[in-house]
């Protein structure tokens, strides 16, 4: 059992990863940031056929097992430019699950150069009362980059360019605000954990295209073929005004959230039990994620090959899949600690 507190949570990773652009299918910039963060601390590093980053770290004392896969996804939800109108306006579509209502009036950063565009619509003065209550379908929206013609726009953007919310990381008290905490929080937790050599062999995977069908994790899990897997996520906290406490779980600031079951996965009962006991032993507060909600890479990994026991540990975040998310930095620190101590528990208690 480890006596030390484990590696700290490196907030600089969260800030860099959160500000970086990486919509599902276009994760290169985030991947480069992760490479820079971890390359000196891992034994091998490769980019797989779909673009996921796979890092292998041998254990202290050359322990052979259990071989643990730790996984966080690099991609964020966003939009893609799908057409350029003759007057220079851009047509766009969602990448991943986004509430259409947040699109209107939103500022986006488009393409590799982060050109800014605004999702405009007719102002309230010019539309009927009835239309003001309707949610605009994305097919009827457009991005305005200020171009006056198709030719002018084509010089700056292309069909296929990705766009993300134009949000900058900020901090006050224990609260952190930024875009894409789902799952840059998990990416930062994972990058922090691998700064120290673990007590069991670990393969860390920063996966691609989770938000469009848990896709990157499929090939990665087959390649890694671990003995067990833990996915690190930034998950939807349940808080909103007027909700009873038990309806608000998990709560920001109440510790890492553990998954029992979601739409993609029945978490391995023994592994979840070990995680919970480890947390209690090390006095790390945890909470339960609401069952039946969402899906993660763990669902895909659990069904890889002849089956992999899998679990999910999440940093609770408010307003995921929206431009500005919140998290409590203490939850991120606790998640790093929990993962670290779990790795030590595994040396004694697995299988």
């Amino acid at each position: 059992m480890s006596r030390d507190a484990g590696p700290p949570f490196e907030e600089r990773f969260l800030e860099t990863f959160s500000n970086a652009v990486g919509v599902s299918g276009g994760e290169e910039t985030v991947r480069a940031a992760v490479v820079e963060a971890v390359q000196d601390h891992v034994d091998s590093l490769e980019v797989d056929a779909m673009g996921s980053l796979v890092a292998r770290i041998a254990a202290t004392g050359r322990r052979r097992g259990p071989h643990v896969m730790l996984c966080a996804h690099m991609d964020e939800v966003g939009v893609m430019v799908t057409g350029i109108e003759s007057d220079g306006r851009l047509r766009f579509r969602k990448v991943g699950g986004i509430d259409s209502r947040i699109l209107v009036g939103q500022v986006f950063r488009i393409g590799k150069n982060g050109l800014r565009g605004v999702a405009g619509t007719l102002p309230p003065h010019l539309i009927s009362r009835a239309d003001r209550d309707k949610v605009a379908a994305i097919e009827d929206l457009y991005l305005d980059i200020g171009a006056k013609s198709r030719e002018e726009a084509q010089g700056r953007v292309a069909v296929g360019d990705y766009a993300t919310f134009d949000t900058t990381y900020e901090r006050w008290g224990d609260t952190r605000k930024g875009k894409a905490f789902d799952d840059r929080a998990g990416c930062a937790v994972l990058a922090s954990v691998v700064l120290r050599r673990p007590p069991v062999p670990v393969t860390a995977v920063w996966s691609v295209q989770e938000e469009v069908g848990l896709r990157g994790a499929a090939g990665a899990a087959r390649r890694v073929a671990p003995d067990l897997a833990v996915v690190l996520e930034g998950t939807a906290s349940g808080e909103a005004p007027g909700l009873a406490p038990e309806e608000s779980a998990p709560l920001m600031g109440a510790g890492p959230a553990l998954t029992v079951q979601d739409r993609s996965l029945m978490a391995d009962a023994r592994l979840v039990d070990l995680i919970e006991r480890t947390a209690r032993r090390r006095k790390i507060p945890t909470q339960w994620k609401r069952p039946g909600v969402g899906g993660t890479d763990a669902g895909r990994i659990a069904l890889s090959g002849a089956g992999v026991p899998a679990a999910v540990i999440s940093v609770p975040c408010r307003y995921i899949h929206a431009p500005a998310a919140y998290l409590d930095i203490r939850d991120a620190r606790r998640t790093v600690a929990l993962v670290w101590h779990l790795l030590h528990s595994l040396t004694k208690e697995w299988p």
Partner: protein
Amino acid sequence: MLRADERSTTEWLQHLSALPGTPGHERAAAREVEKAFSLYADRVERDRVGNVRAWIDGVGAPPRPRALLAAHMDRIGFLVKAVEPGGYLRLTELGGFDPRTLLGKEVVIHSKPPIAAVFGTRPPHLQKPGESERVLPVEELYLDSGRPEREVRRKVPVGTPVTLRQPPVSLLGGRIAAPAMDDRAGLVVLLRTLETLRQNRPAWDVIAVATVEEEFAAVCLGAKTATESLDPQLGIAIDVSHGDMPGAREGETVPLGGGPSLCVGGNIHPKVVEGLRSSARALGMTVQIEGCPMGSSTDAMDIQIAREGVPTAVIGIPCRYMHTGIETVEPRDVDHCAHLLAHYLGALPEEWRATEVLK
């Protein structure tokens, strides 16, 4: 009559679109597809789930990398679900027809021997008010074969496949309208590609696969199992893309006659699509770029995530009126797709890694 290997692209499109082969019953078309591929391939085989695979052996030093090309052999259709009093037949769908386009259409019921029938309709004179405002879902449609119930029950067992009966129509400009251009046009692209590669062998091994069950379930059975079995280093799906028509917004369609359409997005490996664009430039060929934010809805979706992941791309043939009996394509687009594909495959370097080692 022309020899098979002298057929024009138009004739191949007509020939292949006439073949049956609904999901799960592709064997009704497989024999003809095998014969076609055999004109040019080194060997042709059928695998466990019914995919037809045609090999072109490359000239590079072994072990050679393998490229998998996929066009789906199945065409949307129906199965007979029940025979009712009066001899009327009720159906279950295989793949997604546009139900607005079925009423009154002729079909072939693939019993032994095949029987013609029609989707029954009530003439306007006998309709209730408002009845013609409503689109009928498949469960409410029925087939009438014009035969007595006893004969129908004897000749048409439950589970018999049904396809639309519409001979190919030649339109102006060489365009052709027929059922099942999705994805028989893709099979013609494979055929023309094999023809070129046979004369101009690439370094890589190329396996053209006419896949099964692309139209039916969430997982493309043929594409997934063929990838698992062949372990390719690259996969390209050839399927139809929505052709231009009024009412579509910018970016939703590609022009007929505008050449191959290349998808970009998560389902597409940037290196592969860049290679295809480079080949197009070398050929002086116009291509369209299609944004696919949530995937391509083709065999490439299941090729990409099989095994340890496979770099994939999609080449789209512009096609109007998809999932009807009058799917419309331009043979010139089909030829261009094959031309592009063969050039790209010929230019592939022997040293190719799907993964990139950083440390």
